[in-house]
């Protein structure tokens, strides 16, 4: 499939009931650890999911990341906090392979981003500022489409919709008619359907109501318990802080560890 790029987690051997949506928050992490590693794995089992060393990345001529270093292990939920314009979004986009590495080293899921930004892409899920939804299509159509791009089955799509509380009334409503919060839920459902190994979420709580936030949090916990790794940029420190296993601060395009 992807030469020179080591699968670290479960996607190839993942059964539908392993799916964070289907197994909800109950899946024990130990089961996952017992699952055999894919045979083509070349990276050591303990290799970090994200490993950035002094990464510089530019937007036009502006250095959005100015020597960012960060290591994230599998199963972690890392909260990125920091002021506006600090580089949180760029950090997430870089990890998704959307932003080129100008200087420094960046390895995500065993793929060297300086060499190849494509290979990592179908293994990460990014929820950016934009939702990536087609406004003229219904909620169900959108989730089905994005699920289909990674070969998700109808049952998985249905489970994702249910997880974000979209399965009933809203499934047949065009996205154009949804509120901002409902769109965010739809985008999250698309993300759940994508079965990513690394979840990159940019302000996922923004616009969600209390119920939506609870659903999001339990979804992320379930995903992490199922072996996925999560990076969240958020200003909702109280909520995201409770969720996160680790908090790092992004300032001036650099990353600082903080003891939570």
């Amino acid at each position, binding site marked *: 499939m992807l030469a020179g790029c080591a699968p670290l987690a479960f996607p190839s051997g993942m059964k539908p009931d392993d799916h964070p949506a289907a197994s909800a928050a109950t899946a024990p992490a130990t089961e996952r650890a017992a699952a055999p590693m894919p045979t083509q794995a070349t990276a050591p089992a303990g290799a970090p999911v994200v490993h950035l060393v002094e990464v510089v990345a530019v937007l036009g001529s502006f250095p959005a990341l100015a020597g960012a270093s960060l290591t994230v292990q599998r199963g972690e939920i890392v909260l990125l906090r920091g002021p506006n314009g600090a580089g949180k979004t760029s950090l997430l986009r870089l990890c*998704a*392979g*959307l*932003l080129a590495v100008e200087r420094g080293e960046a390895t995500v899921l065993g793929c060297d981003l300086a060499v190849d930004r*494509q290979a990592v*892409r*179908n*293994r*990460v*899920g*990014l929820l*950016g*500022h*934009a*939702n*990536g*939804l*087609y*406004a*003229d*299509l219904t909620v169900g*159509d959108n989730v089905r*489409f*994005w699920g*289909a*791009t*990674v*070969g998700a089955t109808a049952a998985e799509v249905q489970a994702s919709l249910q997880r974000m509380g979209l399965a009933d009334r809203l499934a047949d409503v*065009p996205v154009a008619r949804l509120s901002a919060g409902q769109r965010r839920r739809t985008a999250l459902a*698309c993300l759940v359907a*994508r079965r990513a190994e690394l979840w990159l979420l940019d302000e996922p709580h923004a616009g969600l109501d209390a119920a939506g936030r609870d659903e999001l949090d339990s979804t992320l916990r379930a995903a992490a318990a199922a072996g996925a790794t999560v990076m969240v940029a958020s200003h909702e420190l109280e909520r995201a802080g409770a969720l996160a296993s680790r908090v790092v601060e992004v300032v001036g395009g650099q990353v600082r560890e903080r003891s939570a």
Partner: protein
Amino acid sequence: MSMWRIARLVAAKDLRIERRSRVVANQVLPFAALVMVMFAFALSSDAVLRRVAPGLVWLATLFSLLVIVQRMFAIETADGALDALQVAGVRPGGVFLGKAMALAAQLAALELLLLGLAVVLYQTELVAGGLVLLVTTFVTATIGLAFVGTLYGGLAAGAKGRETLLPLLMLPVVAPVLIGATRATEAALGTEGATPSDGWPWIGLLALFAALFGAGGTLAFGSLIDE
């Protein structure tokens, strides 16, 4: 996931969007019809109109192509879907083929309308002997236009916000289609005593055009939309 499955998925998605939004049906098709009427105003004489009808059909097609291509990529960039497609690791070649298929379907509907209008407004007469040539012309030209439209549309979309570049980049490229399809259509309709046998060499050119840009687009699309 195979390129072909991605292509079908993307094409189905684009056509479903059109079915739901009806932007091409409700806005672009009337625009194209309007262009045909405007041509008649500009040229006024019936004899001239009959003579140039094939060229006008294809010219109106090219103008509408620009509009449809803008729309087709506005769908992808409005809410970051193009980024999302990349993060999803969807093969760009598949996206290219899928969008080209959807574009070809929409162009085919447009061309049927324009041909009908040429019959009604310009007194163009369809000739039974040229029907095979006519259909072949429309099919090959449409495929070529769909490939070029998707390719250059992707370039303009990847370059964010510079849609004004699209006509400058795309119209010179589609000039051979305008020439080839117009000549072949004239031959099929018997304009000025042309016979279908005059038209077939042009089909070769149109097919070559479609093949070259289809192959080029499948290979190059990824590096054009990649930011």
